[in-house]
């Protein structure tokens, strides 16, 4: 009998596993760092926690982004916080050591008095890598990281024709959810095909799940499904938002890849979103979702919403109509439905009576494949654990 047992249950409950994942997965791969428009002007910077590394990205007047580990070379103090704008240099708040935009140490207070023969040239900031791919910012802790395009090369052909740079971020639309579940449970739920028609029977029925095509390409997961025929029949009228106008007809649908580790995209006929899975603790995961849509006026959006209202009213509903709208299963919101099942699963994984059930051979194959990817990363570092 197939089971989702490539990884042991401890992988979801034991903080030793979590620490290893932070170190060997989240601190050693290209990490999502936001959207290009987050840093649009020279001098602007942003710091990103990527696994164990805090990395700053800063734009020079040459419009090139630089990336450094956010640590002063004297005591490791964090140099810059969150987001902001700097002039020409980066100064550490602790002892005012100052670095230029290339990360070179340029000034040390009382240098001659305090440090005999200090070679400033060996004390520049540790460099990291940064690049732009598909309208997103990416950072890598290594200075000479392999190109981001190489990392995504094999999965790229399976992604949607969307051009995120040409879309605009929906207003006040950043969704942040704190989920009481291990990051892998959140990812596995995102890539699980088996649940779509059941859990989301009332919320994701604008796509034809039976026609979904999906699978892993290296460490990354690709997924595409066409529009539901009834929705597609009168798409222009039924769409709740302006359609992304350059998607070829045969590609209309939803491309929902999960890039490794934990960067989900939702690329649909009307929107493009990033679903960023951020591990906080072994049983705590934060998800940050940012969404972009066609650049159009508020009036245009209102027009689509009201025009399609009738169609969606009939179609969208909660999993259980008897539930209160405050309950995830009564919410008619697919994200709430997913969070609910993830948290329930995490709870059970902690029960001594928990036993893995069978695994759906087709619909849950992505879950097993993702476990395999994680296992391949961690195998060399796991002691005394039997291989799945």
């Amino acid at each position, binding site marked *: 009998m197939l089971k989702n047992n490539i990884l042991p249950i401890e992988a979801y409950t034991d903080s030793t596993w979590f620490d290893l994942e932070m170190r060997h997965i989240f601190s050693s791969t290209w990490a999502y760092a936001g959207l290009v428009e987050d840093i649009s002007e020279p001098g602007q910077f942003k710091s990103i926690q990527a696994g164990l590394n805090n990395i700053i990205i800063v734009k020079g007047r*040459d*419009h090139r982004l630089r990336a450094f580990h956010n640590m002063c070379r004297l005591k490791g103090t964090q140099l810059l916080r969150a987001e902001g704008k700097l002039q020409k240099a980066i100064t550490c708040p602790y002892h005012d050591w100052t670095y230029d935009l290339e990360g070179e140490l340029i000034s040390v207070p009382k240098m001659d008095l305090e440090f005999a023969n200090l070679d400033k040239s060996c004390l520049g900031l540790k460099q990291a890598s940064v*690049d732009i791919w598909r309208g997103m910012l990416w950072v890598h802790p290594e200075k000479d990281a392999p190109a981001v395009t*190489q990392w995504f090369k094999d999965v790229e052909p399976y992604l949607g024709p969307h051009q995120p740079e040409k879309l605009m971020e929906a207003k006040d639309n950043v969704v942040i959810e704190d989920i009481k579940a291990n990051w892998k449970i959140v990812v596995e739920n995102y890539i699980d095909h088996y649940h779509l028609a059941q859990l989301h029977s009332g919320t994701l029925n604008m796509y034809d799940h039976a026609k979904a095509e999906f699978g892993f390409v290296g460490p990354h997961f690709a997924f595409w499904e066409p529009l539901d025929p009834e929705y597609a029949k009168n798409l222009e009228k039924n769409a709740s938002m302006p359609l992304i106008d350059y998607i070829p007809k045969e590609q209309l649908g939803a491309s929902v890849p999960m890039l490794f580790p934990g960067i989900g995209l939702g690329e649909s006929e009307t929107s493009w979103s990033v679903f960023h899975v951020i591990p906080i603790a072994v049983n705590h995961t934060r998800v940050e979702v940012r969404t972009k849509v066609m650049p159009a006026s508020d009036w245009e959006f209102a027009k689509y919403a009201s025009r399609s209202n009738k169609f969606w009213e009939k179609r969208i509903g909660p999993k259980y109509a008897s539930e209160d709208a405050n309950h995830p299963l009564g919410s008619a919101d697919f994200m709430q439905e997913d969070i609910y099942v993830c948290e329930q699963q995490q709870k059970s994984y902690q029960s001594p009576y928990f036993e893995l059930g069978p695994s759906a051979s087709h619909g849950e194959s992505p879950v097993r494949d993702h476990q395999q990817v994680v296992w391949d990363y961690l195998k060399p570092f796991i002691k005394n654990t039997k291989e799945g």
Partner: protein
Amino acid sequence: MEWFDLTVKDVKKVTKEATSVTLSIPDSIKNSFSWQPGQHIQLELTIDGERTRRCYSISSTWGQALTFTVKKIQGGKASTYINERLKADDLIKVTAPKGRFTLTPNSETRRSYYFFAAGSGITPIYSMLTTLLPNEPDSFAYLLYSNKDSKSTIFAEELVHLQKKYSDRLIIKHCHSSPGWFDDAPWRKGRIDTDAVHAFINECPPYAQDAQYYLCGPGSFIPDLKKALNEIDVPNTRIHMESFGGAKTPEKPTGDKAILNVNFNGEKHQIPVASNQSLLRAMLAEGIEAPYSCEGGVCGTCRCFLTKGEVSMQNNLVLDETDIKKGIILACQAIPQSKDIEIKYKT
């Protein structure tokens, strides 16, 4: 330096004032003649009984026949000869390709390349561009190219085709110092100056974040553009330069007559250096084949150690303070400032 007698395979006018020359490379010397985009060869021509040597950049695409392109310079003996008299089947003396101003594509690399070229400075950059675009599919190229007008623009048509073929990865903008009446308006009037460089980068920011900058042009083009780039935070480690179109130094440097002692290839020489003569020129005049390439203080090929005496350097875009402290100098730029000079080469 080894000289090879090669046959001219083809001579082709590319503009009214510029000619491309393709050489036949016999199989027996193919290995010595493998080259990287950006490199150049040296020619020795005997024109009306007088021997002249010149460096010309390779303009062809990697893997294709070795071609160099020469723009006729007013009063330029070699360039006029090549443009007006050289023909297929002629024999010319050539050295193997060399030079550090190179771009070697790698299919897995992803970069933004900024190219700044003035006039015939396009020739090595054209080789880089046409090699880069097909061989490094994830990279982007941005060319800012200045000429008098569109008629005098070398590779004008070829660049239009290239632009069409790689429209999603290549941006080309032209500056014309005196645009013709019937020309399409250039991106900007005038030469490439600081403002043009800054405007170009503002308008065309790098998409891939590993950006590299290549400069090729005559006279003060290189120091001026390097300064313009430095002003907007571009570090020197990302700037690659080739001085071009003759090593004309505008003001005559003043120097004393001096004696140079040099230990080269195990042989000791003692030679005179004339006023205003570079150590390099003095050595070449005595038949010492000291290494050099750009003769513009840009490439660093001519570096050596000053072990005695004093020199001044006209143009130095290579050596930094620590190099100079170590006594490193550029022979092509070094003019004696004391009577007794001694240099040595690292072996």
